[in-house]
């Protein structure tokens, strides 16, 4: 070990590299808030690692995308967990990037001499949002399809270049195969490279300039403006003094960063395990019922669009993100006051308060106006989680193209199998257990049944059970008072000649 180190040292001078990167002196008294940037970096690494394996099980084409994601969820060992981590990791990136930005803003860390790093950070913020937007489409389920439909239409309302913009985003006039490959290429090729380069520059500048010290250090006896010719000298002297506390990057600072990153990863894995990433029915461009809702981090914006009158909608849809970008980019150049603590920056504190408050209000309003997450069946009876999953599968497999259910009647002209039983009251006649067996192998019950077999490998037993549970919730229009009269008859067990 020692010999190897000496060998490398003689050639590439590891010792000075170590001094510069690992043992470098840091300003004292950094807070837990200072760990948010490195936590974001940690999650980015998690996203790369999980993303590489996800890409091995993904086919970016409309006829296979959904099936490949389903394969990952159901067949690949730890596949659901892997996808869950990546899904929640995306949310974590957004939360952490925004929190990091609020921290940097409130501590005035974007001011002299860190304007360039603030700009890189703004670039990183938009890249992370771009990742979220492009990644969202990839599973090609209902949510993905319709949220992207809305998102690309918003871009299409831009004055003058709207049509061009939405055509470029979609790779054509319609959302389809070319959109999916386009989003895929951005998500797995261009954005990772850009984000990697920006993040490296961002980090390199943090090392080169040193992390911004706590606010009090630079707030006493400072020239009023950072543009004052005396400011750089003042800054250098104060910054050098702030490093006198004998705090080193390793392990004094990094330990806190690692603890926070580890907590974030634990939360990610717990969310991935218990909440998962979710997968709705496959994208159905003909669906007229689906109410698209964006991913939660776009909800405040979504709510804002609902509040403005129609004539202003396109102005707000394009204007607000554009204005936000302009303000963020211009911030370090028009805010030249030298005070860094929020207590001494009433305008900044007020603006931040208004912005955060506004986002919180919009977010709250969006949550309250959320349609009850369609947790009732077609007849209005409430559904539990298993039944909801069953309902999704029920729709995905187009059961109502043959079976009637409430007001949904099968379209007999389109090759529907005739005489399929009406399912409106099926939960009154049959138990979930009976329906499970029936769906698995209808031919066992009625040799001349026209219903296709849904047993494994077409559906897993869990999925059949979800559907059976959903079906047992179908108890007619008077579901609240109707009494089930179960009339199950099971066929005699048969010996399978197929598998001796």
């Amino acid at each position: 070990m020692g010999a190897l180190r000496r060998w490398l040292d003689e050639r590439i001078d590891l010792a000075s590299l170590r001094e510069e990167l690992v043992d470098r002196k840091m300003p004292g008294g950094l807070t837990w808030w200072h760990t948010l940037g490195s936590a974001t970096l940690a999650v980015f690494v998690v996203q790369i690692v999980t993303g590489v394996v996800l890409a091995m099980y993904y086919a970016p084409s409309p006829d296979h995308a959904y099936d490949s994601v389903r394969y990952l969820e159901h067949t690949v060992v730890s596949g659901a967990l892997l996808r869950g981590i990546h899904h929640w990791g995306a949310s974590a990136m957004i939360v952490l990037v925004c929190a990091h930005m609020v921290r940097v803003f409130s501590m005035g860390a974007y001011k002299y001499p860190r304007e360039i790093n603030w700009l890189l950070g703004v670039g990183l913020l938009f890249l992370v949002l771009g990742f979220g937007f492009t990644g969202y489409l990839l599973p090609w389920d209902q949510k993905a399809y319709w949220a992207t439909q809305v998102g690309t239409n918003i871009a299409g309302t831009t004055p003058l270049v709207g049509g061009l913009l939405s055509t470029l985003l979609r790779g054509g006039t319609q959302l389809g195969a070319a959109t999916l490959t386009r989003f895929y290429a951005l998500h797995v090729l261009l954005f990772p490279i850009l984000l990697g380069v920006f993040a490296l520059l961002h980090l390199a500048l943090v090392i080169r300039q040193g992390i911004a010290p706590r606010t009090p250090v630079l707030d006493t006896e400072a020239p009023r403006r950072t543009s004052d010719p005396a400011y750089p000298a003042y800054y250098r002297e104060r910054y050098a003094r702030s490093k006198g506390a004998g705090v080193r990057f390793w392990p004094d600072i990094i330990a806190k960063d690692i603890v926070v990153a580890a907590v974030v990863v634990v939360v990610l894995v717990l969310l991935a395990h218990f909440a998962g990433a979710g997968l709705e029915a496959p994208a159905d461009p003909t669906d007229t019922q689906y109410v698209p809702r964006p991913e939660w981090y776009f909800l405040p914006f979504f709510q804002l669009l609902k509040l403005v009158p129609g004539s202003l909608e396109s102005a707000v849809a394009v204007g607000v993100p554009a204005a936000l970008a302009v303000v963020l980019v211009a911030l370090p150049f028009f805010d030249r006051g030298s005070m860094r603590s929020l207590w001494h920056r009433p305008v900044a504190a007020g603006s931040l308060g208004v912005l955060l408050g506004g986002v919180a209000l919009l977010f709250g309003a969006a949550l309250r106006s959320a349609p009850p997450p369609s947790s009732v069946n077609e007849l209005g009876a409430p559904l539990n989680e298993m039944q909801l999953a069953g309902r999704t599968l029920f729709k995905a497999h187009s059961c109502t193209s043959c079976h009637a259910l409430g007001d949904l009647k099968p379209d007999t002209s389109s090759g529907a199998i005739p005489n399929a039983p009406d399912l409106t009251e099926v939960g009154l006649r049959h138990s979930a257990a009976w329906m499970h067996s029936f769906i698995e192998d209808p031919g066992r019950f009625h040799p001349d049944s026209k219903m296709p077999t849904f047993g494994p490998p077409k559906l897993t037993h869990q999925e059949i059970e979800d559907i059976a549970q959903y079906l047992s919730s179908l108890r007619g229009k008077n579901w609240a008072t109707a009494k089930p009269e179960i009339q199950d008859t099971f066929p005699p067990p048969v010996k399978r000649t197929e598998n001796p």
Partner: protein
Amino acid sequence: MSPEASADASPDAEDANVIGRRRFLRWVSGIGSAVIGILVGVPVIRSFLSPALGKTKPSRWIKVAEDIALIDLGVPVRAGFVQDESDAWVEAQVEEAVWLYTDDGEKFKAYNSHCTHLGCSYGYDKASNTFLCPCHRGQFDVKTGAVLAGPPPRPLDTLPVEIRDSAVFVDYTNFRPGVPQKVSA
């Protein structure tokens, strides 16, 4: 001056407190990194290795011939069939075939139709009454599947055969080519 800075001025305090503190922080960093590595690494590695961790497929009996009475004696017969195959997330129908051979119309031999050398489809050569693989001139005995000539590392892969109501069923499997042992692919 901050309190840390004044404490730093005393070298004794540095020795006792700072070194102990740094040892603790190194330890915390190590544990934290390990937690991150394990929590993310395990699902990543498991899903990467997933194809190797999978269980072998259950056997599939396939009807390859309707009536044994129609099968020639002493001459191998190629019986093709269409199989539903799920290739990961792609459901496809693939055409496969087996070679059937019988001397007496009662006892049947079924050979996987891929050469054991590198997986080419071999054919029947009437002149020599042997199986002949066009890729590298592998030659097999029609009765036993034994290698007569060429590079194949093992005899032809025989498949279990069953006669049910005078139809021929074969438990179809593919095997890994190029190795001396018969292991399923």
